């Protein structure tokens, strides 16, 4: 059930009415029922996957939680009788048991994700190696369908499990409450990847009808639909035309494709998350923000702190830190510092851990070399800029440009262009096509297509370009205003008639300018496929 389908709107409206009309004690079961129904609509077989993950993670969490509580109580009781070493040995012994639960459950759930998402990719690569070696006996592929939102809910479940292991959250005792955390439908198919400690605060609480929260939530949903239907789905036609035929659309066309895809990705993903956060807010539930004006970033490093925040912080907290602070890595650091000196020895563990993180980030986005190379290119740029840091410092000492408006704009523009180039790795069918398209920007001289009317042959009319330009200006304006605080709060302070004109105008814009038309195909959100 796509967010942009009539079915979803009807489903949400019915849920909303029941949610506030029925007694508050019914809200939790209602949300769980709605989430299961939402999931079942994608295909009845898929629900087995999410149930397996929810139940195994819940059970392992309960066992680990019980183990920690028992260990703490026992230590308290026997504190006086034990020496420091004995206490340490006891703690370590109980921790080992928790570690086994953690490892077993991680293996099972990441194993499921690996099989359904990556098995055919591994087979394809294996077959390619066999072919290259001139060997016969190719492996056949498995008919595996990817369960809805598996990358998102698996990561959410893994985050919870690690948090329980670390003792930063208490284990959830109710399997049904835990299932709701994993399957909460607004964020099931494209995130954000919520933490139990954050989402749990409002997910299980009873909620009365709060007119301001509900209207703010609905306004946010409307803004999300505007970005998705008026902008992302409109510009999609041109992006598909350009990336669908790399032989024809080269040079300036490829550059336009990169720019358009970057606009599409922003409108699509942030629009989808606006719908998610807005819907949750209308139900009284707080879902953490996933973006902070990412295209205003002055460096790629900053961009990754502001784009898809829940995924980036997941990789940081559950992969980067555990690897880089592990005993093995600390020993490796000591070894390299001794052999290669402080300067290199200090950097190597960070670079190695970052490599694993960016390889995994690429792979998380999809079972394809395009994504892996995209991840590793991000890694290369980030590490290169780390290495060039002393050079930047020297430059800034010599030239006092830091903080000046024109220089900040230059930094933002430079980062935006870099992101445009990196993003395009999502789009083309193969890595070869992507490289060819990017290369053509520098080798094919056809810049006249930008003004000779050729762009009107990409599936967009002059009116479409006008709507896109207006929509982009609006997105930019909203982002600029947002720097000073909530835009909805500001609008809320305006007179009633002004608010009515504004929100009704946006509603009409979605209705009249949304990319529907004859043969309209509800395009799924880009991040649904991850």
């Amino acid at each position, binding site marked *: 059930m796509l967010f942009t389908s009539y079915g979803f709107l009807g489903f949400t409206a019915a849920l909303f009415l029941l949610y506030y009309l029925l007694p508050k004690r019914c809200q939790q079961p209602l949300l769980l029922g709605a989430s299961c129904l939402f999931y079942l609509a994608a295909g009845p077989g898929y629900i087995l996957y999410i149930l397996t993950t929810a139940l195994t993670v819940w059970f392992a969490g309960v066992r680990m939680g019980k183990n920690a509580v028992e260990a703490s109580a026992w230590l308290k009781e026997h504190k006086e009788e034990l020496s420091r070493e004995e206490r340490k040995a006891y703690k370590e012994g109980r921790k080992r048991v928790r570690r086994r639960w953690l490892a077993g459950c991680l293996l099972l759930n990441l194993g499921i994700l690996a099989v359904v998402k990556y098995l055919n990719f591994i087979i394809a690569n294996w077959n390619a190696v066999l072919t290259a070696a001139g060997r016969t006996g190719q492996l056949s592929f498995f008919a595996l369908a990817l369960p809805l939102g598996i990358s998102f809910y698996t990561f959410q479940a893994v985050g919870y499990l690690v948090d329980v292991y*670390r003792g930063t959250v208490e284990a959830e005792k109710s399997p049904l409450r835990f299932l709701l955390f994993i399957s909460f439908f607004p964020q099931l198919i494209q995130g954000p990847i919520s933490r139990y400690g954050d989402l749990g605060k409002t997910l299980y609480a009873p909620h009365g009808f709060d007119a301001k929260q509900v209207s703010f939530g609905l306004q946010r949903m409307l803004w999300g639909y505007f970005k998705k239907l008026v902008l992302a789905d409109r510009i999609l036609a041109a992006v598909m035309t350009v990336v669908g035929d790399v032989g024809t659309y080269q040079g300036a066309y490829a550059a336009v494709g990169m720019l358009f895809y970057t606009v599409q990705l922003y409108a699509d993903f942030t629009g989808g998350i606006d719908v998610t956060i807005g819907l949750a807010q209308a139900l009284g539930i707080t879902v953490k923000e996933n973006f902070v004006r990412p295209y205003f970033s002055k460096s790629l490093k900053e961009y990754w*702190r502001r784009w898809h925040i829940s995924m980036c912080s997941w990789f940081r907290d559950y992969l980067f*830190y555990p690897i*880089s602070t592990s005993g093995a890595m*600390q020993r490796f*650091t*000591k070894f390299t510092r001794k052999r290669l000196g402080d300067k290199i020895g*200090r950097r190597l563990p*960070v670079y190695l851990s970052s490599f694993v993180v960016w390889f995994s980030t690429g792979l998380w986005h999809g079972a394809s070399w395009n994504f892996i190379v995209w991840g590793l290119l991000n890694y290369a740029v980030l590490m290169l800029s780390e290495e060039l840091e002393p050079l930047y410092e020297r430059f800034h000492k010599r030239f006092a440009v830091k903080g000046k408006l024109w220089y900040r704009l230059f930094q933002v523009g430079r980062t935006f262009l870099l992101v445009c180039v990196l993003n395009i790795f999502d789009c083309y069918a193969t890595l070869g096509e992507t490289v060819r398209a990017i290369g053509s920007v520098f080798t094919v001289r056809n810049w006249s297509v930008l003004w000779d009317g050729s762009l009107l042959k990409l599936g967009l009319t002059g009116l479409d370009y006008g709507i896109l330009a207006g929509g982009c200006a609006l997105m930019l304006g909203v982002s600029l205003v947002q720097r000073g605080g909530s835009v909805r709060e500001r609008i809320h302070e305006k007179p009633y008639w002004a608010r009515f004109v504004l929100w009704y105008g946006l509603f009409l814009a979605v209705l009249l300018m949304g990319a529907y038309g004859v043969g309209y195909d509800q395009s799924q959100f880009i991040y649904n496929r991850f």
Partner: protein
Amino acid sequence: MEELLEILRDMHPDVDFETEEHLIDNGILDSLDIVSLISEISENFDVTITARDIVPENFNSAQALYDLVRRLEDEG
């Protein structure tokens, strides 16, 4: 404390670590700095900082970090 301040100053000479209380919230220390810092601390103090300890409250100021090191030393 002085030893810890020296490690921090070595990483960011331009920051006043004695007064700054939002090292993480203000983006002064990023994830790469934190890993380098942990490796320096394990080299100079007899403690092991694990991923579990990496929360903003422990890294937002030199004092908080020092408290963490002391706590870990006590736990042995």
